[in-house]
């Protein structure tokens, strides 16, 4: 209090622990950038090479469309991998999500196990799953589909479970009170309440699958990624650009389509 007016501190008082926390986070960020980010001079030389008369960009243009028929087929395979993997993943995510939901799981141990599986599937990157499944079923799109499926069980399982946890419990209690079965409650009250959230998650999963399926080919799990890798390995940068542009178009179409479906359904 000064001269009868209230003095309001400009900054909120923080504890020593909070200051130490802020310093540790800043130190982590600075040290990480210093040890891993590219040096400015190296970045400059790289950009110079990229735009040089015989650099990467010059070799990419004009895009080579001589093999567009094969690229189109591989692009279709990529889309099919994404759709198949996402569909299977979403289907299997539902039971895992139910078992991982507090109110719907039959037993705490089952819930813990389901949550563990979902966390495992989510935390391991899809490229690692792809390598795992290539060893299991061999090179090709089947490994890619399995990798996408497992990745989507982890992705959608978590969001489906969260949506079911947040669903209004009133209608569920009302059905439980009249003696409805667990399945009856899930299908009659939980799923209809979660439909908007399930739809949004499913469409994001499909978009993610389409983007991810291109990368899976880089390790041999089928799709357009194999051709992209080969094009780069053989210095066919103009063909690589064609693949990148077609992939971009595919992803854009899927994203626009899913946005449209979301706006209609939710």
């Amino acid at each position, binding site marked *: 209090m000064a001269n009868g007016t209230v003095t309001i501190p400009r900054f909120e008082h923080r504890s020593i622990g909070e200051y130490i926390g802020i310093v540790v986070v800043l130190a982590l960020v600075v040290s990480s950038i210093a040890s891993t980010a590219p040096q400015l001079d190296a970045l400059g030389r790289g950009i110079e090479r990229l735009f040089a008369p015989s650099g990467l960009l010059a070799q990419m243009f004009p895009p080579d469309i001589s093999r567009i028929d094969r690229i189109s087929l591989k692009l279709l395979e990529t889309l099919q991998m994404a759709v198949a993997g996402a569909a299977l993943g979403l289907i299997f995510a539902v039971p895992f999500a139910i078992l991982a939901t507090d109110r719907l799981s039959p037993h705490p141990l089952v819930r813990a196990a389901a949550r563990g599986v979902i966390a495992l599937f989510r935390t391991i990157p899809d490229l690692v799953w792809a390598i795992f499944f290539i060893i299991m079923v061999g090179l090709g799109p089947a490994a890619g589909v399995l990798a996408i499926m497992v990745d989507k069980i982890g992705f959608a399982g978590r969001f489906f479970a969260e949506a079911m946890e947040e669903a*209004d419990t*009133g*209608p569920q*209690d*009302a*059905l*439980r*009170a*009249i*003696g*409805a*079965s667990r*399945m*009856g409650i899930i*299908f*009659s*009250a939980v799923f*209809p*309440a979660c*439909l908007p959230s399930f739809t949004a998650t499913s469409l994001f999963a499909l978009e993610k699958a389409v983007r991810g399926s291109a990368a899976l080919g880089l390790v041999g799990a089928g799709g357009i990624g194999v051709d992209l890798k080969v094009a780069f390995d053989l210095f066919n940068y103009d063909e690589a650009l064609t693949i990148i542009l077609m992939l971009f178009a595919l992803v854009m179409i899927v994203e626009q389509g899913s946005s449209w479906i979301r706006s209609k359904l939710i």
Partner: protein
Amino acid sequence: MNAPLRAAANKTDPALAGSVLSVSQLAKSFDGRIVLNGLDFTVKAGVATALIGANGSGKSTLMKCLIRLIEPSTGRIEMLGQDVLSLSPRGLRAFRAQVGVVWQKHNLVPRLSALSNVVHGVQARMSGPRAWFQSLAPDTVRAEALDCLDRVGLADRALQRVDSLSGGQQQRVAIARMLMQRPRIILADEPDASLDPQSGEEVMRLLSGLARQDGLTLIIISHRMEHTLEFSDHILGLQQGKIVMDRPTPGTDAAQLRRFFEHQE
């Protein structure tokens, strides 16, 4: 139109001959806090009983204990000829199927149609996908659900999403769902609480009328004294987890109820 419902209610039932509900020494505590303190009362078949008391007196807890949505700490509940507290999970489901509950909040599934919500009531006696949505339900179930909607005056709104209906209409859909259950006893936990006075009275009149029409026992919680006096045959007053009033409604007036509520404060 409502023949199946009445047929179910009118059949001779030994359990309905005398008292349909008998509660003795019922107690419930939450973390050492006593909410129900050794209740003893009976409810006769076909009688509308009003359960009154101030907020926190234990009315809703009692209602939930009756169908074991909350497990009582001690005591005995005999309802519809069954020892409720000793029922197995399967037996409890079968028992609950006979008890219609109308909640303060309608507890309908908002994104579904009125008809689908009413069809859900059949889950009391039928399971599987045909009881989940009106579009999958057998013709007989759809017809019965439509009949129930007709009885609450909403047959023309059958395919309308319930979240587009007014509060009073939603509560009427909830009553239709309860009728679809073909209950033998109805528990209503402040069905008029979240409604405007006119809609609240309409809902109470409808519920009371349907119960009388089908000869069903009704146990109803209401904070509105005029509703208690108009729509009940018997009054049970709860105070701090104990029954302190147990008397027939005829002969009870508003002044007596007002005194009862004043003593609660």
